[in-house]
């Protein structure tokens, strides 16, 4: 609620700085840029609800997009499936390490991020013979528009959002995520197979990251080795601004969606202000910090 008001306030600021800036076309570009971040942050939300974190989401997104683009000549469907398979595979390994071997999520996913990035660089040098190209329908998915101002990526993001929001609130799996984040030991004593839930959860996160990578490649209409790498910290920021506790157990995906929108609008406000890059970065960090502080105060007051 407070968050939505904040989002409206930011949009108001935007309109005040540059009257006439908020148009259907502005809506279109905002959603276009928010969609990859929002989908990427969806996976991050799922793992953070269990008290974990995934530092490999951005690298997985890049790898999925690059592998899809470099296999486009074998057929679009196969390319997309290969890209998604990368996400599932990395997510599965993350899940195995964290759920079965009890590795700390932060360092496990950091290690996998190194493996993915390094592996991708090697792959790009030895296995890629043709220029990577983004399949046409992925480009439409990432950058196309229907009905004049509704981005096609919203038609993918919205169902994903609905599934996650409903899944978290209404299904046993969703409620288990909250329970594990709250008290994993108690869950185990209550008979929950915690490791299975964690394994599935990290695999889902990997899959969502891969989807986000494909959408992003479509939006930009190219896939290079650094495609999504700047997205890692914003995903964490979107989840935290959205009110999900970094210790797990509380929060939801609808907050993350607004968090991703806030970050995107914030970015366009800073761009409109024509602030130089360093100032933009400083303001970005300071505002995230202020939001997080405000949120902690509000939560501890109620």
């Amino acid at each position, binding site marked *: 609620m407070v968050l939505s008001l904040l989002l409206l306030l930011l949009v108001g600021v935007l309109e005040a700085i540059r009257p006439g800036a908020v148009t259907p076309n502005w809506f279109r570009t905002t959603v276009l840029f928010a969609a990859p971040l929002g989908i990427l942050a969806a996976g991050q939300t799922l793992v953070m609800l269990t008290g974990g*974190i995934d*530092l490999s989401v951005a690298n997985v997104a890049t790898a999925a997009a690059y592998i899809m683009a470099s296999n486009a000549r074998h057929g679009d469907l196969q390319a997309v499936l290969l890209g998604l398979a990368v996400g599932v595979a990395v997510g599965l*390994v993350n899940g195995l*390490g964290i759920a079965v*071997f*009890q*590795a*700390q999520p*932060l*360092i*496990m996913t*950091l*290690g*996998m*991020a*190194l*493996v*993915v*990035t*390094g*592996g991708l*660089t*090697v792959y790009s*040098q*030895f296995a890629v013979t043709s220029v990577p190209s983004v399949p046409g329908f992925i480009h439409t998915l990432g950058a196309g528009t229907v009905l004049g101002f509704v981005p096609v990526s919203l038609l993918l993001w919205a169902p994903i959002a609905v599934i996650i929001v409903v899944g978290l609130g209404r299904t046993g799996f969703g409620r288990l995520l909250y329970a594990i984040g709250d008290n994993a030991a108690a869950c185990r004593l209550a008979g929950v197979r915690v490791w299975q839930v964690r394994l599935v959860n990290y695999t889902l996160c990997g899959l969502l990251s891969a989807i986000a990578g494909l959408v992003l490649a479509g939006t930009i209409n190219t896939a290079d080795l650094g495609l999504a790498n700047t997205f890692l*910290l914003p995903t*964490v*920021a979107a989840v*935290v601004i959205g009110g999900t506790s*970094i*210790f797990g157990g509380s929060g939801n995906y609808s907050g993350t969606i607004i968090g991703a929108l806030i970050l995107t609008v914030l970015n366009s406000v800073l761009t409109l202000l024509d602030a130089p*890059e*360093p*100032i*933009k*970065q*400083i303001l*970005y*960090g*300071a505002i*995230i*910090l202020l939001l*997080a*502080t405000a949120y*902690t*105060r509000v939560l*501890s007051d109620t």
Partner: protein
Amino acid sequence: MVLGRVALPFVPPRFVRRHGWTIGVYALLLASLIFTVAIHPTYGAFDIKSLALGALPLALAAAAQTVVVLSGGIDLTVGPLMAVTNVLAARAMLHSNFRDALLIAVLVLILGCAAGAFNGSIVVFSRVPDIVVTLAMSFVWGGVALLILEKPGGGAPLDFQNLAQETTLSPWVPNALILLIVVVAAVWIPLRGSRLGLALYAIGSDRTAAHASGVNVPLVRMLAYTLSGVFAAIGGLALTMTTGIGSPLSGSFYTLSGVATIVLGGVSLAGGKGGMLGPMAAAFILTLIPADLIFLGIDPNYGQVIQGIVIVLVVMVGGLATLRRKSA
């Protein structure tokens, strides 16, 4: 129980039990050095020097991270702070003489100390989880570094660079290694033995218990970030010495690599467990891996993959070991 058994299992001496991980890391370092000499027989003084030069900034980033992680936190500003101090030093030292450079270095250290204290006070006063605060602050410090120097540039007097780049004592003992040992020992040994050092470990292992035994938890947390700022500033100065210039993006690599290094070095991310010796050796191991790959004629890009696999295996083994100890 152990007492009930007829054949007592082998119990290693207490020293080995307490420092098992550190001993293991040094054994691994020794093994990788022997391996390096085996695959590259001409490995000599020059290679040792480049290894020390490469490991110096990483080891200092690890030292900065260690202090905070021991206290039960995490500091994602280590890399950006190294960049800030790196560009600050390089910009101020351009065309200066050695004496001025040393003076500038001291000022940069003080600034690093202040920046760390600033981070720490936000962590303490905002009551926001430290990972979030330092994540946001990493954007801020990254922006500050870009404000100071837009693109790589600046410089430092040759004598100042030689503090790390020369081999004054013997060709086999690079200055970078001596610098690292002296600097870390000068900060860490007195700290470790002091009340503050004890408090650092105490709040890392159990904050409530530490508070109950009279430790000023917010103050100690703030001091941990301050010390981290000091080590990061030394790391930034080390970057100025080893590269001779300042680069606003130089630090981006060191935040997460520092975390990986300390985990390999036996510091528990849960806080309260580990020391400074392990991470130092780990920094050398992680620097040696890409060099070895070049000697083997393998694409150095595999280096990242192997580093990643080493880290993943280490945390899995560590996790399993903890599990077995719990169930035993």
